[in-house]
Every structure is written in structure tokens, then in C-alpha cells.
């Protein structure tokens, strides 16, 4: 029997409530169940090959306590036997453990609620044929734009998901979302040089394909004229909105994470109330960003999602927390518990940044470079950012899509540059912020100009 998406939440809730009853019969002290159901259609394009996958991730994860010893187990599927396996396996771990976790207090208990995101039913109706046609359109637009377009890679992902959380504190909540995203990488080649243009779209509804192929093709072709910079020096660097959103998200993911703060891995640990950035810098961790497919009403422990002020006019205001670490730090839970991965039921909830929003500045997009004498514009891709040191903040990345800035004007494209600095010091190196933002997979962040990164190319 296939259920309607509208019935998923009540179905998941019923399965969790049955599981909680079963756990009671086993005499379990404290227990939490998380169950999720999702469907997605992913169409991947690589050159002329299409790779389409359809299916649903469905499963259950269980945290179980014996005294203050915590076990976790999960199973794919939400049948009674899957739920019972997870409960029994988690119980067996918690019974075997020797060391108590003395910092444990309780699972989430709250009647508070936050907003759910809009359910865009267009994703329920879109057919595999329509998506395949969309892929074709991206490909056609790109090839029509220029004969030097050599390859088109991309991924379109459309789907919907729901999840439910229940625990022995009496909590039983659900939320759901819909999503439609496109990433397109258009390659242009000439004289052994290959350049990539990026187009993307993030939303909660069926994606609009028009214009994306041409946009990315134009970027790729323009980069074919790139020249080497041939020097190493300190320069001012502007990151466009996509590059800046990835950079700022990386800069916050460890430093303001409550777990890193408490466990001795955050450079900001002792800096609440202190200046950590320029006075024009204000950042929110936003679990309630409308239009964002990541927006749901509750976090993965069932706590209401929040919008948390992290840096206010350069001053560090708050860290982000889940239930466990907010108790240890004696502060409010910020609703940042997240179970990672496509099989989220297999992960324990961990403090994770939601989408971030950086308050835009005043600088118009076409005047971005106006008072930069010598500098670099970096667009879209920051290669290797995930390998920077999240603890010290030192980063060294390669930016494949760059332009030279001279006397306030954006000039010719450059060969890939290596850009190095420190993510945390960078908050104090901000020269100005752009006045526009676009929703990216990392949140909403304007273009940002930084003073004195080390450029080598």
C-alpha cells in the first residue's frame, strides 16, 4: 500500500508511539525514536549520459538509556520488526556499557512550536519525463551558446520527506519538507584548456530549468581567456555570493558549535561579548529561512527550530546548541540538532549549523570593485575549503574562477589561484558587503570583500 504524502506524518507518529509502548514493556528507563520517510528522483547528467535513480529512504533510529549509559541503533525500514530491532540493539549496547555519562540530563521536553515550511506540491506531480526534458534544455542552451562547450555535468534532485521524533519525556512531533535543486557544471574547452561554469538553483518546488544552461555556459566560455597571475602577494579579494556563503558557513561550522566550544576545539570559546568581526558584520544561524528546503518546524531531536543571532555588529553573541550541550552550558537549546546524511536515521543528532544568513551591506553589485586598486574577484567555486583546519581556522584553497581587479574595474579572467588566510581572522578583514543575496545551499550571504589574503598563482 502506498500512502499519500499527506498521511506520512501520522503514519510515522503511529509507528513511533507503538515503539514507545514496546519499550515500556521492556522496562527501559529513557528512550527516543526518530523515524523518517522520503522519496526522491535524482537525475544526473554526465556528458551525454543520463543516470536516473528513484527510491525512498525509510528507517528508524533509537537512542536508549540504561541509567546514564547511552546506546544507539538503527534499522532501515519502519516495520514493527525494524523498530523493535533498533530498540533492542540500542538497549543491549546501553546495558553493556560500563561508563556512565554524568553530563546527561534528559531528552527534549517542550510544547513550544515553530513554523513549518511551505509544502510545494509541484514536486509530487513532476514526472521523470519532465525532469529528463529539463536536463535536455540545460544541455541544449549550453551547446547553442557556444561551440566550445565540451561537456555538461549536472544533478537535478526533486523530492519530499517527513520525519517524526518521540521520546519517553512525552514528546511526539513531526515535520516535513519538499525540495527541488539543480546543480549544473558546464565545461568549455579550447587549446587543452578546460574551464567550468556553475549554475544552480535551490528551492522547495519543481525547479525551473530555463536560462540556467546559458548562464553557466557564458561563464565557462569567458574563462577560456584566462591568464596566469605569475606572482605571490597579499591582495584584497572579493568573494561573490555563492563563494562567500560557502566560506562563511565553513567559518561558523566549528567555531560557534556548542560541542566544539565545550570540548576545547573552538577558538571562540571564551569570546562571547567580544569583538570577533568588523562592525558591519551581523550573522544569523537560521533554521526558519523561508523558501529554504532545509526549513522544517523542529530539529532532529524534536526541539523547535530557531533563528539565532551569532554575531551582532561584529560582537559574538551566541553559540548554537542541541539538548545535551545546552544543558551542560546552562543555556537555551537553539534547535540545531541534526542527523546527517541521506540515511539520517543512521546518525545520532549532532550540533550542526542551519542555513546561515549574513545581513547585506550597502555596496551595489555593479560597484563592488569600485575602490579596489589591485585585487581579485573570486566566483562560485572554492576548491578544497573542506580540507581547511576547522580548529585553527587556517585555510588554503584553490579558486578556479577568478578575475583581476585593477583601478576599481573587474578585468580579465585569471588562471586558478591559490588563496590562503585564516577564516576567523577574516571576520575582521572584511572591507565591505554587497547589497544582494541569493539563496544558496549554504544560506543567504551577500558578496564580501576581504583585505589581504595571500594570493599565489
Amino acid at each position: 500500500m502506498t500512502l499519500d504524502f499527506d498521511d506520512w506524518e501520522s503514519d510515522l507518529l503511529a509507528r513511533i508511539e507503538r515503539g514507545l509502548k514496546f519499550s515500556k514493556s521492556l522496562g527501559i528507563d529513557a528512550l527516543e525514536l526518530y523515524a523518517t520517510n522520503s522519496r526522491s528522483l535524482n537525475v544526473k547528467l554526465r556528458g551525454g549520459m543520463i543516470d536516473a535513480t528513484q527510491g525512498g529512504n525509510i528507517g528508524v533510529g533509537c537512542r536508549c538509556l540504561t541509567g546514564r549509559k547511552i546506546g544507539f541503533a538503527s534499522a532501515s525500514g519502519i516495520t514493527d520488526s525494524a523498530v523493535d530491532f533498533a530498540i533492542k540493539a540500542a538497549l543491549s549496547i546501553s546495558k553493556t556499557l560500563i561508563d556512565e555519562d554524568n553530563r546527561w540530563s534528559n531528552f527534549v521536553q517542550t510544547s513550544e512550536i515553530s513554523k513549518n515550511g511551505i509544502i510545494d506540491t509541484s514536486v509530487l506531480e513532476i514526472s521523470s519525463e519532465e525532469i529528463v526534458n529539463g536536463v535536455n534544455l540545460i544541455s541544449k542552451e549550453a551547446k547553442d551558446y557556444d561551440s566550445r562547450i565540451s561537456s555538461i555535468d549536472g544533478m537535478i534532485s526533486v523530492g519530499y520527506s517527513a520525519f517524526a521524533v518521540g521520546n519517553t519525556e512525552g514528546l511526539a512531533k513531526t515535520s516535513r519538507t519538499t525540495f527541488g535543486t539543480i546543480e549544473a557544471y558546464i565545461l568549455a574547452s579550447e587549446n587543452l584548456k578546460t574551464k567550468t561554469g556553475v549554475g544552480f538553483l535551490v528551492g522547495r518546488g519543481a525547479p525551473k530549468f530555463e536560462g540556467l544552461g546559458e548562464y553557466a555556459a557564458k561563464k565557462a566560455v569567458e574563462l577560456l581567456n584566462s591568464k596566469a597571475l605569475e606572482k605571490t602577494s597579499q591582495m584584497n579579494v572579493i568573494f561573490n555570493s555563492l563563494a562567500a556563503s560557502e566560506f562563511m558557513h565553513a567559518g561558523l561550522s566549528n567555531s560557534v558549535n556548542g560541542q566544539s566550544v565545550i570540548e576545547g576545539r573552538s577558538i571562540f570559546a571564551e569570546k562571547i561579548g567580544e569583538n570577533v568581526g568588523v562592525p558591519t558584520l551581523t550573522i544569523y544561524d537560521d533554521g526558519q529561512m523561508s523558501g529554504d528546503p532545509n526549513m522544517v518546524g523542529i530539529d532532529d531531536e524534536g526541539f523547535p527550530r530557531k533563528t539565532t543571532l551569532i554575531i551582532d555588529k561584529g560582537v559574538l553573541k551566541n553559540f548554537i546548541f542541541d539538548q545535551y550541550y545546552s544543558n551542560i552550558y546552562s543555556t537555551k537549546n537553539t534547535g540545531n540538532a541534526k542527523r546527517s546524511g541521506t540515511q539520517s536515521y543512521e546518525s545520532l543528532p549532532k550540533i550542526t549549523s542551519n542555513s546561515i544568513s549574513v545581513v547585506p551591506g550597502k555596496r551595489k553589485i555593479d560597484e563592488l570593485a569600485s575602490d579596489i586598486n589591485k585585487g581579485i574577484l573570486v566566483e562560485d567555486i572554492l576548491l578544497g575549503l573542506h580540507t581547511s583546519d576547522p580548529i585553527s581556522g587556517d585555510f588554503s584553497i584553490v579558486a578556479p574562477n577568478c578575475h583581476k581587479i585593477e583601478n576599481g574595474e573587474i578585468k580579465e579572467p585569471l588562471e586558478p589561484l591559490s588563496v590562503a588566510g585564516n577564516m576567523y581572522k577574516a571576520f575582521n578583514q572584511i572591507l565591505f558587503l554587497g547589497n544582494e543575496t541569493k539563496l544558496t545551499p549554504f544560506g543567504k550571504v551577500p558578496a564580501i570583500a576581504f583585505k589581504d589574503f595571500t594570493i599565489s598563482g
Partner: protein
Amino acid sequence: MFDKLQTIISKIESKGADFVDARYDELLTRTIIKENERIEECKTLKRAGVGFNVYYKGALGYAFSADLSSKILEQTANNALEIAKASSRAIDIKLEIEPLQPITELNLKLNIKEPAWLSDLDEKMDLLKRGEISARENGENITSLKIMYGELSGEKKFTNSEGTEIQWNPLLLELMCIVTSKNQQGDLATGYEAKNGSNGLEYFKNEDSTPEEIGKNAALMAKEKMTAKAAPAGKFSVLCENFLAGVLAHETFGHLTEGDFIVSKGSPLHNKLGETLGSEYVTIIDEGVLPTDYTLKGLWLPYDDQGVKTKRSVLIEKGILKEFLHSRATAKILKAEPTGNARAVNFTFAPIPRMKNTYFTPGDLTEEEALKQLDTGIYAIKSLGGSAEFDGSFIFQALKGYWVENGEKQYPLKDVALSGNILDLLKNIRGATKDLEIFSSFFGGCGKDGQAPLPCGIGGPKLIIDNVRFGGEQ
């Protein structure tokens, strides 16, 4: 299960499918993660499901289900057929396969003494505790001590339109320690050590892979980095340690040999078979079952997820590009033999060309001789990974390094970021040591098209490479 899947395969064939394969994965993973002596995570995961690949008029559809009832599985296979039909009207490149002789292989076993999944949790807890004690004893000013144990076990079954039936039991094991120390200026330094492979728990009794050794090495690295200087920026010669050489082989070169990137011409190597791309010191192998001395240190992968026996692929031999890595479909397009490289992270993904164990073959130098030959430059050691673009450009971070002058290590370096283009780099390799090391991580693994982490083996000797760009400070 084989009978159930065969019945569905026949039904889908009767609806017009050209070829169908079905894969049942039942994987069990156990992980224990401790931070500062507290258990952060102790978990058991069971993941079971079936995925169907359906070929229809040159298009391929994939669908999967965790619900194993016959009715839902048949519906799932039908979905795969439907999306293959939709795609068939839009493709430029046809995905078809050459017939293969059916295989029946139901009794594959690896020779290990103490299977991790049969031993008690207490025994694994003890490994972690011993690692922690050793790290605390050897470290200095530790602000964070993280130690992680992971094991993978389970069963994979595969069958297809040809009547092939394969069943085997994957396994992987890892113990990893990460130590963070704070220096007088308040800067944080991180040290790391891990031992892993398709092995039994007896592995942690070997002298160089005891929990004590792992904890000690991580702590000593963090301690040394407390006083390390930032690596200089610019171009230098480098001695790449074994793990880093493995990252190079995998991230910067291996991905460019994957059949889908070759067919789509996304890889700069797509038209370069037979060309000299590297120096005489460059030979890179990708294989599923490593030679006896290394079998248990790498990843054991006898068959891929399309039921193809994994092959020893010589990607590049003495600098000359020899071979690419294929699924059955990319092999057919490029008129090559399938290499057993079609792999999926789990049943929720379609198999795509991925690497197996990828490594540089060793040379004949000792470490001392290699440093002498380097003369002046950077000795770059270990890495938490890196990434590469389709054009061959790459960046990866070494975990630590040394500045070398006159063939001798002078002082430790931190934040050693290497970048460049692999096609330039292979030409600049001018020597290799004789010690080959292979690594296969449970916690790490490869990412491609949203499928991560896929266990892969990587490795090599130590390599001397000229003219490598380093980021870092001036």
C-alpha cells in the same frame, strides 16, 4: 533471496527490459566514538535493501527499496524500467552492455582470525581506553582527545539476467585517534593517526598498529605542531609521505581515469591512452584484491556491484597511460573489458565507476636517500583529504611537514597546502622509496556524486616531486 530476485528479473524482461540486475545488500556497522574519555557515540546500524538496474534501449534506470516484500520489490523494478524508458528518449550516449559468462560464487571468505562482529563490545572499549591512556601519556597541553573505532560487516548478494549469482561478506575495520593541543600563544594544533583495513581484531596486536602506538603517534604529532611554523608560499620540491602519495593517486589522478568521465570527455585524459603523461617513476595500479602482504591492510573487494570480478588495472605504467576504470556500460562504449569498478555506497545508489585500491608502485630509495635527493624543499606528511577538478587541478592539505635543507629535516611545518595540476605533477616525479604502504579507512572514504563515504584503498611509497605549489603564508 536469489529465487525471489530472479522471478522479478524475468517479469521485467518480459515488459521489454533489455537487461536487469538486482543487488541485495545487508550491511551492519558498529562505531564507538569517544571524546575526552566520554562516549559520544556507541552505535549499531543495520541497513538492508535491494536495488535494480534496468537497461532499456540504451538508457539505464535505477530504483531501490528497503521494503523487501515481493510486491514492493516488483514495483521498484518497474519504477526502474519506467525511468529508463523516460531517459531513453533523451540520451546522446547509449548505455548498453556486452554479454558476460555467468558466474556462480557463493563461498568467498577472507582468512582472518578474530572477526570483529563476533567479539564483545568490552573488547573494543578496551582498545579505545588503551589508545586514550597512551595519548594522554605522550601528549602535551591536550585540549581535546578523540578516539574512534569502526567496523563494517554484512552480506552482499548479486544476480542478473545472465543468471550470475554472487554472495560475499565485506569487512573493514579502523581505529583512529585525533589529538588537539594548545600552545602558549593559544593556537590549536591537531595530530592524527589511524590503522585500518579488511582485517580481524588481531590486527591491533601487531607492533605498529597497537592502540598504544596509535594514541602515541597522534599525541606526538599534535605536540610537535604546537611549535611548527606556517609553511612558506611558492613553488618547492617536495617529498610526499606514503599516505599523501595515496591521496595523490586517488584524488588527483584516479578520478580522471573513471570511465564515466572518459565517456563524457569531462576528463582531460579521455583522448590520451598510450601517451606519456609522467616520468619513468610513475606507475599507478587500481586493484580489488591486493597481493598477499597487503590484502588485509587495504580494502578487500573481490567483485564490484555489477557482479564483475575485480581486475588489476594498470592505469599508468612508467609514465604511459594504459587503462581506464570501467562499469560494464562504459567498457562497452570504449570497447574495453569491464574492470570491476562499478561500485555503490549502498543499495540506495546506482553503481558508478569508482576506484578500488589505488596506489603508486614503489621505487628503490630509502627514506634517507630520498631526503638527500630532495636536498631542499618540504617533506609533506599525511592528509585529511583533498579535492580535484575535472581539469586536473587539485588542492590538498598535508597534516604536517618539515622544512628540509641539504637533505636534512630542519624544523616542523603546519598548514602545508599543496596545489597544482596533476598533468604537470606526474612529469615532475623524480624518485620513489621502496616502502609501499596501503590504507583503507572506515571513517574516511571517497565521495562522488553524493555517494559518500565509499571505502577505497589508497597508498604508495614516498615520492620526490619538483615544482609543487604551496599555499600558506608568505
